[in-house]
Structure formats: C-alpha cells, structure tokens
C-alpha cells in the first residue's frame, strides 16, 4: 500500500474553514465550546481532542506581492493545520498500550478501543497535536480518515477544500508537486515561499507538510521539533554511567576502606 500524505499549500488557503467543518462532520467530532477568542477570525485557536483540522489566521506586516494589497496594508494569511503524521512519531513511541499504530498508509492512528487514557502521547507530541478529552479520558487526533482511505476515498478535509490548498495523494508525488509549486511561486516573485517538512529534525520528516510564506515560526511550526524518545539513549547511558559509578564507588569503599 502506498504511503499517502497531505500537502497543505497556505498560499491557496482562503480561510473558509470548510476543512474543519468537513472533518467534524465526517468523524463526528464534538464541538470545542462556543468561546470568542478576539484573535483575528480564529476561535478554534489550536489543534486538540475536538479539533483535528485548524485554520490559522496570520496577520502580518505589509509585504510586497502578497495578494495585491496596497503597500501600507497588512496581509492576512491562512493556513490549515493538521496532525503531521511524523516519520518518527513521538506519540506512537510513547504509547504503552499499543493503541497508537502505523497504518498501511504510513499514517499514525489512535485505536480508540485500546487507548487507556494514560496521556503519555500528549506530552511526547512535538507539535502539541494529540490531546485527551476531559469527559472521556482518551486521546484523540486526526485519523487521516483511515476509514475513508480504506474505502479508496480521500480524507474529508481534502475533499471539502474548495481551492486545492489541501492536497492528498501519494507522499512522494506530493513532494514533487510541492517542489514544482515552490519553483512556480519563486519564479512569480514570491521568494519567501518555503516548504515546512522537518526532515533534518528528530521527527525525520512528516507525512503532512506545508507551504508557508516567510518564517514557519509565524505559523506556529517549530523549527526543530524533538521527539522525546530520541533522548532515551543518552538518558539510559547517563543512568548506566551513574549506576556503574555507584557500583564502582561501593566496591572501592570495600577495597580501600580499612576496618575501624
């Protein structure tokens, strides 16, 4: 089975939130509360147990060539965020029950009937995606529409996206499409367009990657996401060294300490 992915092109996003609604509709995700944030048009604010797609509204200083705005007007950029389905997934590696698995599509999937709600995955996700539901205890996140993919359909968000900002397909084909799109944008003068796919970090690349403008940090995308389990080896090494030092110290105490 081919490894599939999402390529989210923020330059095409119009902030309609159709992906958020389609995701909730298909996956029967409950509401997030009815709170107004006062932060642009973004009342969802972050990915969470009840938000598996989230459109970010980034209000920027004026930059030339952005949407034809007058030079003194600020720009308003949108980007649809989602679980990154990391190559080395922190949540999957931390899950003690085997609830979180790698599917045949390469995606990271939480099996809700196995999850026991321990929450280890929540603290190990370098992107803050996976989240526990208070009244339920279990952890939830984007399923990559595993059920739809099994039936040969594209995920609900990609299906609903009216502008083609969310592309779904085979991962290697999407990466080539992203390269072509970047070349096209650069040729058109949008030189700050860049791909966010942290292949050189400990997550080893993501199956959902993004095209953004300027610094990905403006879109809350971490420059160097760290999977905590990569710290296991130095942690165990340190523990082993510590233990060895204690053993050696004890033996030395016996060997060197004279009888009083």
């Amino acid at each position, binding site marked *: 089975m081919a490894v599939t992915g999402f390529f989210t092109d923020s330059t095409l996003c119009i902030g309609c*939130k159709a992906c958020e609604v389609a995701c909730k509709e298909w996956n*029967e995700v*409950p*509401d997030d*509360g009815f709170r*107004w944030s*006062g932060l642009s048009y973004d*009342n969802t604010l972050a990915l969470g147990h009840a938000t598996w797609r989230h459109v970010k509204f980034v209000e920027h200083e004026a930059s030339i060539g952005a949407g034809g705005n007058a030079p*003194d007007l600020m720009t308003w950029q949108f980007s649809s965020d989602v679980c990154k389905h990391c190559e080395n997934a922190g949540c999957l590696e931390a899950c003690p029950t085997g609830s979180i698995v790698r599917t045949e599509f390469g995606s990271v999937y939480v099996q809700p009937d196995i999850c026991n709600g321990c929450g280890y995955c929540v603290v190990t996700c370098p992107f803050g995606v996976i989240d526990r539901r208070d009244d339920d205890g279990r952890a939830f996140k984007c399923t990559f529409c595993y059920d739809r993919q099994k039936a040969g359909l594209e995920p609900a968000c990609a299906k609903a996206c009216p502008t083609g900002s969310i592309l779904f397909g085979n991962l290697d084909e999407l990466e080539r499409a992203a390269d072509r799109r970047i070349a096209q944008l650069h040729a058109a003068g949008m030189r700050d367009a860049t791909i966010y796919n942290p292949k050189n970090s400990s997550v080893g690349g993501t199956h959902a990657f993004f095209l953004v403008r300027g610094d990905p940090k403006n879109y809350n995308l971490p420059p160097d996401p760290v999977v905590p389990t990569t710290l296991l080896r130095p942690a165990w090494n340190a523990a082993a060294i510590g233990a060895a030092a204690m053993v050696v110290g004890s033996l030395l105490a016996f060997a060197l300490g004279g009888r009083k």
Partner: protein
Amino acid sequence: MADGKLEGLFVMGQNPAVGAPNAKLERMALRNLKWLVVRDYVETETATFWRDSPEVASGELNPDDIATEIFFFPAASHVEKAGTFTNTQRLLQFRQKAIEPPGDARSDLEFMVQLGRRMKARASDRPRDAGLRALTWNYHDDDAEEVLREIQGWHNDERGTMKDEQAGGGAHRSSFIAHRLVKDFSELKNDGSTTCGCWIYSGVFDGENKANKREPRGRYGHGWGFAWPLDRRILYNRCSAAPDGKPWSDRKKLVWWDDAKGEWTGDDVPDLTGENPPGSKDDAPFIMHADGVGWIWVASGLKDGPLPTHYEPLESNIANTLYPRQAKNPAADRKERPDNPYAKSPDNRFPYVLTTYRLTEHHTAGGMSRTLSHLAELQPELFAEISPELAGEVEVTNGEWITISTARGSIQARALVTSRVPSLDLDGRRVHHVGLPYHWGYRGLVRGDIVNDLIAISEEPNVRIMETKGLSCNIRKSDVTRHPEPRRRRRISVETLRFAQGDEVLRWR
C-alpha cells in the same frame, strides 16, 4: 405592516426579525398582523418575536398585548426535497430528494399546492373570487419537475409524445404531459396557443430534464445542468469573435462564423444564427439590448442614468467631490419617517463609517448556521472590527464591549481591534471605519445583538436594495454589558437542533 395596513404575512425561508433592514421596526410591526405564517426548519426569531425579542425584555412589547396568531410550519431542507438551484451564473441544477424530511416537515412546494387546493375549495361565488375559481391548480402533491415543465412551456392544443411521458417518469403526470412541450422560447406565441411560466427557462426540457443532467463535456461544461437561455454558458459570446467572425484568441475562442455552413458555430451555443452573418445589419452581440450594442450611456431603463456616476451614501460626513450640490442619489427612496430616521450629513453625533457584511461561517440571518455546533463554534459572538487608531480614540481594548449606535438604534458587540481595518484621510479629516458582521439574533446556540437594527429601510432606485455598506455611526465603550460571559455549554451532537424550543431541548444523537 407597521401602520396596520397588512393583515397577514407568509414568511418562508426568511428571517426578517434579524435579516431585514431596520429589524427593530420589523419586529415591532409584526405585532400588528392578524396572522403570521412562518415556514422554516428551525424556529426562527421571526416566529418567536412575541416572546423573546429584545423589545419584550425591554418592556416595549408585552406578549399579553400581542394578538397576532402565529403558525409555525416545519419545513423540509434542501436535501429533503427535490427542486432546482439557480446560480447567478444562470445555471439551473435540479436536485433529487436525498432523505425524507423528519416528522411533519414538508417541502414549500407541497405546502403551496395544498394551500392552493384549500383556497380553491373555499372560493365563493363572489366576483372577487373569480380569479381563484378560474385558476388551474391540478398539481400533484410534491412534484418539482412538474412545475419546471410548466415554467418551461408547452403547446396548448397539441398532445404530448410518449417521449415526453417517459422523460417525465410515469403516467401519473398525465395532466402536465398532455401537452407537447415547446422546444425553446422561439416557439412561444402571443396568440394563446402556447403556455410558458418564464421564457428564459424554455428549453430546459428538451426531450429530458436537462437541469438534472450531470455529464459535463467540453471546456464549458455543457451537459451539466442547464444555463438559461438555451443552455448558453457565456452570454454575449459573439463578442469573443472579431467583426469578421474569427475568434480574437485561439486559446479563449467561444463561437465563430462557419463560412461553409453559413452559420455561427463553436464551443458554446451561439448568440446569433445564420441570419446574422458577420458584418450584417443584425450582427450585434448584445442581443438583450434593442440596438444590440454595449451601453455606457444607458438611454432608457436606468432610473438614475443615463451615465454611471458617484453619489455619497444616504448618510455621509463626506462631501461629494463630483457633485458638490447633489451629494446623494436623488432617485433613491429614503422612506424617511419617525421610526426610520436618518442622520444628518454631516452629523457630529455619528462621526464614523459603519459597514455591515457576512462571514464565511454563517448564513445570512443565521437560522441555518447558528443552530449548528460545527458552524456556530467557529464564530460564536458578534464583534465589531475597528482599527487600533479608533480603539485608542474611544479608549477600548481588544475584546471589550462597545456600544454602536446609529440614528435608528444601538447595539452592543465585542471590539476586535485589528490593523486590517484601515483609517482613511478624506476631506481633510481622519475617517474611521466600524465593520460589523450581521448574523446573530436571540435564538440558536450562539446569540448576539441584531446588527440590522442599525440599518435604515431605503431603496436604491434600480434594484431597490437597502444601503448597508456606508452609514454614519458612533461607538463608545459600554458602561453596562447586557451580555453575560458565554457559559461553556454541554457538547451537542452533530445533529442539527431542529425544532428546538430553546437550549433545554437539544436533540441528542
């Protein structure tokens, strides 16, 4: 209605208590009706104005004094009934019923058919009922295709063919397929031999219901739906070819003159026929105009023509540079009266410009979106967008409650302070803008003040639309907030809150 001249009102798929200009005047006027029929798929603000409108809370309306008899009929939604959508691009798309409507909900068509039948049955012998007695009203209960056939038109004195009957899908439609359908509007005559509901739709049944087809072909999508007139996808497509009949652009060609056949042909249905070869007297692309040419100088038809020009809004603090002595459109109907007042121009009481608009997340007056959790949570509260400069001037910060007032009334909203809203230098002074989306009301999952209370009932002379984009307003920080902090509601299911009487009766999945 406000003056008591209107006895009854049918409101179908509208919500004037929220969505109409000067909505407070609308709500106050509804109480003068003897009866009010509301058909919708949620109980809208219009249906409950007598019980939970802001005027009831403020004491201006007392439910005990309202004698209006209100009938609320649950309506089928667009997926629960067959019918057509017609886009502004002129495309008719027929849709089938996907699911049965729940409970007592019925389509608008069935309601109207039943209503007509009952009215006819009660028609008296009095002269004033003569029209009702003569009315042909032999529709089946809920057959949208039958109505579309009547709109498309037929020959009164010729029998239909079997092909028509089969296309209609059953012998039970005998009353409507007894007549041979016209091919298109060119067959219509003014001698009583043909019948047609609306000529632009003639041709939608050309052997079959073309609006119901979903087989697009070619670059203009012929075969998917039906574009009036005559399935012409681009109107005035003659303009795509040069005077000699050859396309201006090979890449964007639409229609062209075929010398061999002696007629217009192309990728679209041509505007012109073989009788209008290039260069002939009738080779004129703008076929809807009497002289066939495009107009900047509009000799007739435009009520404030003949040339496009600029007028200031009906309320404006800015002088009209183009016409210093006639700042506003003299042909506009202001409908000015004590309950529909205007600010002066200029008016020191209302120094800012107000614009109202819609958000992606909500649908017009909100009946279809404020009741759905997946949409309501995305824009849960009314807000007013103002610039940081204006926020500084009135000393409010982001998220604080502000009161916005016009000559008609005042409402409260949360301030959304953003540099996206620019301030302009006009007429030697700084002009600030207040932007308000208008989707909220006093029912649904998310509630807020009704922005249309601020708008005047006015009519632009040609299309008679009220002015909502440029009004004079004032804002200040709210002293007292009528609105409590929104409480965290219990999660509701993905189901619509259909026919919910209030928060208590949410339907659970």
